[in-house]
């Protein structure tokens, strides 16, 4: 085999020499001396110690050839060459050229040589000592010892001369290496290794953490150039950042059960940990690379390890950016927790750099997953799984009645900025509705609604299904759940708890909408209430209330509603009459006490008191009318009176009736206004709003509005305080008038009785006596007086009454004028109608300017 090869080589060399020496046009003379000497020369060259000065890398050679062509301006040829090379390289298998790189290298050298020959013939000058006829070297067998070169003195000479340019470079390089070695006490490989260690937070041999400088620095004692020192410092920034991040993670994780890091903090740490594991992978790769030498074109040139400081700085560029971000986040989040932390990270994610953006997005998805899970379970199950107080909804233990209003709050600090305020409100309300249903309504149907919502929102509702950046999906889920849960809640409130019926009952009883009931009640409790407040028993009043219910149409109302109606005695002071402290109360139980809260009931109470007073005044006026109806006081019975007295009596009566009429006009119009312009209109609006209410908040707002409009229009508001006062002064005056009118009619009755008695003494004696006995306590009784005295007394009484009535009428007209003049100052548009109604004939407005 070996010999066969050798023979083949010899034959081929001979052939080659023949081909080269003699052009085809001149057929060579075999065995001519020229040919022989050429052959010997060739064999000597081939057997020389020339070894390839490059690493056997075909691709590299092809690349360099291509570059040379390109730099010579033959770009098209360069392209063709590259193309040919790829085809050439792709030929494998039997029959292909095995030693491709050698062929390429050969072509390259020949091509270069030819250029040199053409330009300058210095290569020929470099080989002057080669003698063709050197017999000693003419041994053909030398060719065969190509690999096992013998060390001969001459071959050194040949080698040196032939490779001179390479040697020059090599020498220069060696010198440079020596220079570098002299300057650096530490080799670059060692420094690279140390930097890699430092980047894992470990002190190396030379690079150590310096607490004073707060960073990894190269020890001062080691002699290295300034540039290297700076480079090391720069690269080790990564180590410093890593230390910081790592420190935060271990701090949070170590103190986990005792300190409240929170689930979001933990998620953040886990996400950071993941990023760090990527970083570890990179470092491991780099460390492995640090051991490998750089594959250089020239084998002999001693290349450094693959990783130099500069390469390292390129490798570190991306991790450095990430690590800086993480360090910034760690700094930011050290004091933050929960939603605030997520918000802070979100603020950093608003970055134009896609790398940063993507990195932060990845981080946020991890960080926010516990938060979104909380939202999910809150919205769908009403569970507040928030052990570490990280959620933006906080619950507090409250009584059932205030659960809706105060049970759950938004915690603004924990609300991350990627969840908008309105969305947060909706989230809050949905969970609140569920909890309200569960706690106050003892309802289980919400679970179906929630399941339905979950199904509607699709796949995003599975556990951990929601992520950062899917705000739309979140909104969809929340909206779906909110819609269904709220609908269910309203259904429960309307149907199971009969909200509407209760509202109506309140309107009928507390707002005195049920006329016959109010009339009966007023009749029954009236005498009782005239007593001083401290003598009245509320039990007795309760009994009277029951009687009033039974005797009015209210008895057909739902028993449950009637049971809730109670008498309430307000705290009273000495001198208060029963009228001042009596009121009705409606007991709204859970869950309706969410709507009818304490403060709402207080408002109802105020309205009730006002209306009750109005009714009382009206009742009083009607009572007065009953006694002084013209047909009750027949003028015929006064026939026997003196003319003057009779006239006086008639004029007093008349004055009284005119005044009554004026008062009645005012009261009945006011009553009308309150009943129809205020109560019914507000109620109708409220009903409409109740229809369109989508959730409990809407319902509450509607009810609030209803109540507010009643209060405002009934002059009970803040702004109409003075008007209200003058109105009450009017009411009081009317009540005073009532007592005067009673006294008048009583006096007239007495007078009538006296005159009847004197004319028909025998008749009705017992009855009169009885009355006399009743009145016996009254001073100045007329019984014993004679007819003249009677007339005198009557005259005096009527004069007094007339004066009193005059005073009342005067006061009344001034008060009424005051009231009417104040009325237009109210902003409320409905009050204009009241004014219009009171002053329909423009009687008062004509009266005023004249004054």
């Amino acid at each position: 085999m070996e010999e066969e090869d050798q023979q083949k080589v010899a034959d081929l060399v001979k052939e080659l020499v023949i081909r080269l020496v003699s052009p085809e046009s001149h057929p060579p003379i075999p065995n001519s001396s020229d040919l022989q000497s050429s052959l010997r020369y060739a064999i000597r060259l081939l057997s020389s110690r020339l070894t390839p000065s490059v690493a056997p890398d075909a691709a590299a050679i092809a690349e360099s050839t291509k570059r040379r062509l390109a730099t010579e301006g033959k770009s098209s040829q360069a392209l063709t060459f590259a193309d040919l090379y790829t085809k050439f390289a792709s030929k494998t298998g039997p029959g292909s050229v095995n030693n491709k790189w050698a062929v390429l290298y050969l072509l390259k050298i020949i091509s270069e040589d030819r250029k040199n020959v053409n330009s300058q013939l210095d290569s020929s000058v470099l080989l002057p000592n080669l003698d063709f006829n050197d017999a000693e070297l003419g041994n053909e067998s030398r060719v065969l010892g190509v690999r096992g070169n013998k060390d001969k003195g001459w071959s050194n000479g040949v080698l040196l001369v032939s490779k001179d340019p390479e040697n020059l470079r090599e020498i220069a390089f060696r010198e440079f290496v020596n220079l570098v070695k002299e300057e650096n006490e530490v080799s670059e490989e060692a420094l690279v290794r140390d930097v890699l260690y430092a980047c894992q937070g470990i002190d190396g041999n030379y690079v150590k953490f310096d607490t004073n400088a707060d960073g990894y620095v190269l020890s001062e004692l080691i002699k290295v150039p300034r540039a290297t020192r700076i480079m090391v410092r720069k690269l080790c920034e990564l180590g410093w950042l890593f230390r910081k991040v790592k420190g935060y993670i271990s701090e949070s994780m170590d103190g986990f059960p005792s300190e409240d890091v929170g689930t979001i903090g933990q998620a953040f740490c886990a996400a950071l940990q993941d990023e760090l594991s990527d970083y570890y992978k990179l470092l491991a790769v780099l460390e492995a690379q640090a051991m490998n030498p750089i594959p250089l074109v020239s084998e002999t040139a001693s290349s450094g390890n693959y990783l130099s400081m500069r390469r390292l700085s390129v490798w570190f560029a991306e991790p450095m950016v990430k690590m800086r971000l993480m360090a910034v986040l760690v700094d930011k989040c050290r004091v933050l927790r929960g939603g605030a932390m997520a918000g802070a990270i979100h603020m950093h994610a608003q970055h134009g750099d896609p790398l940063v953006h993507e990195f932060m997005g990845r981080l946020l998805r991890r960080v926010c997953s516990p938060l979104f899970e909380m939202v999910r379970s809150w919205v769908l199950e009403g569970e507040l799984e928030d052990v570490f107080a990280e959620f933006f909804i906080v619950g507090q233990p409250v009584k059932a009645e205030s659960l809706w209003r105060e049970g759950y709050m938004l915690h603004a600090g924990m609300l991350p900025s990627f969840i908008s305020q309105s969305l947060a409100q909706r989230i809050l309300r949905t969970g609140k509705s569920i909890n309200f249903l569960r706690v106050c309504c003892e309802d289980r149907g919400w679970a179906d609604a929630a399941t339905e919502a979950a199904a509607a929102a699709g796949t995003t509702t599975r556990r951990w299904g929601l992520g950062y950046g899917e705000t739309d999906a979140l909104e969809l889920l929340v909206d779906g759940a909110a819609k269904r849960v709220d609908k269910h809640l309203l259904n429960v409130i309307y149907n199971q708890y009969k909200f509407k019926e209760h509202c109506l009952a309140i309107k009928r009883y507390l707002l005195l909408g049920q006329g016959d009931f109010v009339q009966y009640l007023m009749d029954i409790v009236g005498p009782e209430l005239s007593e001083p407040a401290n003598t009245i028993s509320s039990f007795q009043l309760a009994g009277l209330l029951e009687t009033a219910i039974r005797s009015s149409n209210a008895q057909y109302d739902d028993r449950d509603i009637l049971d809730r109606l109670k008498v309430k005695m307000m705290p009273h002071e000495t001198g208060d009459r029963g009228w001042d402290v009596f009121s009705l109360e409606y007991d709204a139980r859970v869950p309706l006490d969410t709507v009818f809260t304490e403060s709402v009931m207080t408002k109802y109470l105020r309205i009730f008191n006002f209306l009750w007073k109005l009714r009382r005044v009206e009742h009083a006026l009607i009572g007065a009318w009953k006694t002084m109806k013209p047909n009750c006081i027949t003028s015929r019975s006064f026939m026997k009176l003196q003319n003057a007295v009779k006239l006086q009596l008639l004029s007093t009566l008349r004055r009284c009736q005119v005044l009554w009429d004026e008062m009645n006009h005012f009261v009945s119009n006011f009553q009308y206004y309150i009943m129809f312009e205020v109560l019914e209109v507000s109620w109708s609006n409220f009903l409409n709003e109740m229809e369109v209410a989508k959730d409990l908040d809407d319902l509450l707002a509607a009810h609030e509005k209803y109540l507010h409009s009643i209060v405002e229009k009934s002059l009970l508001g803040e702004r109409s305080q003075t008007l209200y006062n003058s109105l009450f002064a009017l009411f009081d005056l009317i009540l005073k008038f009532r007592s005067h009118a009673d006294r008048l009619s009583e006096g007239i009755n007495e007078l009538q009785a006296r005159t009847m008695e004197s004319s028909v003494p025998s008749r009705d004696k017992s009855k009169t006596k009885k009355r006399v006995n009743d009145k016996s306590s009254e001073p100045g009784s007329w019984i014993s007086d004679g007819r003249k005295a009677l007339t005198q007394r009557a005259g005096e009484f009527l004069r007094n009454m007339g004066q009193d009535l005059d005073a009342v009428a005067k006061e009344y007209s001034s008060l009424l004028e005051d009231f009417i003049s104040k009325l237009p100052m109210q902003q409320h548009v409905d009050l204009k109608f009241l004014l219009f109604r009171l002053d329909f004939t423009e009687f008062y407005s004509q009266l005023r300017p004249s004054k």
Partner: protein
Amino acid sequence: MDADAAKTARDSLDLAFQMSNILETGLDRHTLSILIALCDLGLNPEALAAVVKELRRELVPQDASSPSSVQ
């Protein structure tokens, strides 16, 4: 050597020859095939290149009358 191998060999030689032309080595097809064969046998390409160069240079002064051999 089957037909496939022969074809591959011929293709390879063609490609090498084309590359050689682009690089203006001045080698003819036959010479190139000999050189490839020698390379495949493990001879140092640098040495082979030196042989080609030296013998050609020798040719120039000897056969000054026939420049075709150089070209």
